[in-house]
C-alpha cells in the first residue's frame, strides 16, 4: 500500500513539473506572440494599441506566475483556455481529435501484438534456426525504419498501385489499416525481441521441465505454462510504448492527413497558437504519466513475486 502511495505522490510531483515545463517553454518564446498572432489574423502590421489590447485581453500582461496559476487552475477543472484564432475552447478541440488519435494508437498496438507475439514465440521455440534468424533481422529492420517512410511505402503499394485502401483521411476501418500498420511495425519489432527473450527465460525454468515430464503435450506446455508467464514483461513494455505511440502518431497523422492530436499540435505550433500547444502537450504528458503508473501497478498485481516498493531503490 505504501508503495502505491509513493508512486501516486511521485506521479503528482512529475505532473506538476510537466505543467511547469510546458508552460515555461511556451512563455520563453523569443519575440512577442501577440504581434505575430495579430499579423497572422489580419494580414497586416498591427498598431501598437491593437497589440496592447490583445495582450490585455489574453491576460499576457499579468505577472507570469499569475498566468501560470490561472492556467493550472483552469486545466485542473478541464478548462485549457481558448484558441487564439477562433472562439473554440482548447479542451473541446482536443476532445474532438482525441478519439481519432486513440483509435490509431489502439489499432497500432493491436497490429504490433498480432505481429510480435506469434513471431516472438516461434523465434524462441526455434532458437537459432532460420525462422529465428529471419525474425530477428526483420525486427532490426523494423526498429530502424522511419515510420513516415513506411507510411509512404504503404501508400505507394496498397493505395496507389493496388487501390485497396484510400490514400488519406479518416473514418471507417479502411482509413485505419495503413496508418496502424505504419505506426505498429516499429513497436512490433521491439515487442518481438522482448517476447523472444522472455519466452527463452521462461522455457528454462524448472516448472516447464516438470510440465513436460508429466507428459503434457508440447503445445499445452508452450501456450498454457510458458506463454502466460512470458507475457508479463510484455504488458509493461506495451504500456510504456504508449508514449512511443503518441510520438509516432504525430508524424503518421501528417503522412496520412488524418485528423487527430498530432495534426492539431503541428498546425498550432506553426500558427503559434500557444493555448492549443500547451493543451495538447499537457494531455499527452498526462496520458503518458498515468499509463506508466497503471502499468507499474498492474505489473505488480500480475506477478505477485515482485515485492512492493523495491523498484524505487
Amino acid at each position, binding site marked *: 500500500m505504501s508503495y502505491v502511495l509513493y508512486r501516486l505522490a511521485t506521479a503528482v510531483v512529475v505532473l506538476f513539473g510537466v505543467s511547469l515545463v510546458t508552460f515555461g517553454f511556451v512563455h520563453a518564446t523569443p519575440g512577442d506572440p501577440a504581434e505575430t498572432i495579430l499579423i497572422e489574423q489580419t494580414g497586416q502590421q498591427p498598431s501598437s494599441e491593437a497589440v496592447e489590447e490583445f495582450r490585455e485581453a489574453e491576460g499576457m500582461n499579468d505577472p507570469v506566475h499569475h498566468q501560470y496559476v490561472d492556467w493550472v487552475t483552469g486545466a485542473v477543472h478541464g478548462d485549457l483556455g481558448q484558441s487564439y484564432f477562433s472562439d473554440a475552447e482548447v479542451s473541446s478541440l482536443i476532445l474532438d481529435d482525441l478519439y481519432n488519435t486513440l483509435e490509431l494508437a489502439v489499432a497500432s498496438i493491436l497490429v504490433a501484438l498480432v505481429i510480435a507475439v506469434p513471431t516472438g514465440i516461434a523465434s524462441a521455440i526455434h532458437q537459432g534456426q532460420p525462422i529465428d534468424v529471419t525474425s530477428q533481422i526483420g525486427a532490426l529492420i523494423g526498429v530502424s525504419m522511419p515510420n513516415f517512410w513506411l507510411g509512404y511505402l504503404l501508400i505507394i503499394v496498397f493505395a496507389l498501385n493496388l487501390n485497396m485502401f484510400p490514400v488519406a483521411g479518416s473514418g471507417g476501418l479502411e482509413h485505419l489499416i495503413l496508418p496502424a500498420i505504419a505506426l505498429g511495425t516499429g513497436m512490433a519489432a521491439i515487442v518481438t525481441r522482448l517476447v523472444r527473450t522472455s519466452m527463452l527465460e521462461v522455457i528454462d525454468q524448472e516448472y516447464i521441465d516438470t510440465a513436460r515430464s508429466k507428459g503434457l503435450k508440447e503445445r499445452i506446455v508452450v501456450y498454457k505454462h510458458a506463454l502466460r508467464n512470458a507475457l508479463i514483461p510484455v504488458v509493461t513494455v506495451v504500456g510504456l510504448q504508449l508514449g512511443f505511440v503518441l510520438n509516432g502518431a504525430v508524424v503518421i497523422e501528417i503522412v496520412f492527413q488524418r485528423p487527430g492530436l498530432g495534426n492539431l499540435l503541428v498546425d498550432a*505550433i506553426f500558427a503559434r497558437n500557444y493555448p492549443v500547444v500547451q493543451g495538447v502537450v499537457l494531455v499527452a504528458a498526462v496520458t503518458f504519466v498515468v499509463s506508466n503508473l497503471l502499468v507499474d501497478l498492474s505489473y505488480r498485481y500480475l506477478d505477485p513475486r515482485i515485492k512492493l516498493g523495491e523498484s524505487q531503490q
Partner: protein
Amino acid sequence: MSGTNADTETEASVSTQSTWRDFLDEIRYNPLTLAGTLIVAFLFAVAIVGPVLTPYDPTSQDLANGLQPPSLAHPFGTDQLGRDMLTRIVYGARFSLGIAIAVTSIRVVLGTTVGLVAGYVGGWVDEFLMRLVDIQLAFPGLILALVIAGVLGPSLRNVMIALAIVGWATYARVVRGNVLSVKERDYVAASRLLGTPPRRITKRHLLPNAINPVIVLATLNLGTVVLATAGLSFLGLGAQPPTPEWGTMLASGRNHLRDAWWIVNIPGVAIMLTVLGFNLLGDGLRDTLDPKQQSRLEEI
C-alpha cells in the same frame, strides 16, 4: 532499472587493448556486428569524401531535367527541381551524422554530469535531480522536441537544441546507478577516508566504471537521433529547403508518390541504413563492453 551493475568494476580495469581485441573477436564471430561496423564506416566515408566525387551541386536547379528516373547520369534520379538525388543524399549524410554526433555528445555530457552529481552527493540533491529525470522521461520525447523546436523557430540548430534537451535523462539514470553501485565499495570508501578529493575519486573510480554502458547507449542513441532529426525535418521544423537533409527531401516527395517513387524512397533507405548501422554496432559494442546488460537498453 538502476543499480543492476553490481559487479562491473572489474570491467573498468580491463585495459583498452583487450577491449579492442574483444571487439575484433565480436566482429569476427558476429556477422551482424561486422555489417553494422561496415555500414557506419561506409557512411562516414561517404560524408567525408563523397561530395568531392559527385559532379553536381546539391542545390543548383535544372528544371528541364526534373523528375528524371534513375539513369547512368543520375543513378538515384533527379527531384522535382532537377537536382541530382545522389549528390543530395551524399551531402545529406554530413548533416545526419554531424547532428547525430553533436546531439549525442551534448546528451552524454549533460546526462553523465547529472548522474555523477546525483549518485555521489546523494540526499536531497539526488532526490531533486532524479525527479527532474522523471519529468524528462514523462514527456513523449518527440512531442517535447517538436514544441521546443517550434517555439524557437524552425532550423537545424534549434532541432539540435531541442533533441539535446530531450534526451539526457537516460544517461543520468544509467550513470547514477553505476555510481551508487561503486560508491560504497571498500576501495572507494578507503580512498575517500584518505582524503582524496571528490574530483579525483570521480575520475579514478566513478567515471571509468560508468563509461562502458554510456558508450553502448550513445551508439544506439546516434541512430535514434538520426531518426528524430529526419522526423522533425519531415514535419517542417528542421532543415529548410533547399538544404539537402534526408527528412526534408523525403517530405518534398509527398506530391510525387505516383510519378517519382525515388524521391521518397531513396532518402528513406538512407535513413534506415544509417539507423540500422548504428543499431547493429551498438548491439555489438554491448556484447563486448557491457555483456550483463542484455535487454535493458532495448526499449530506449
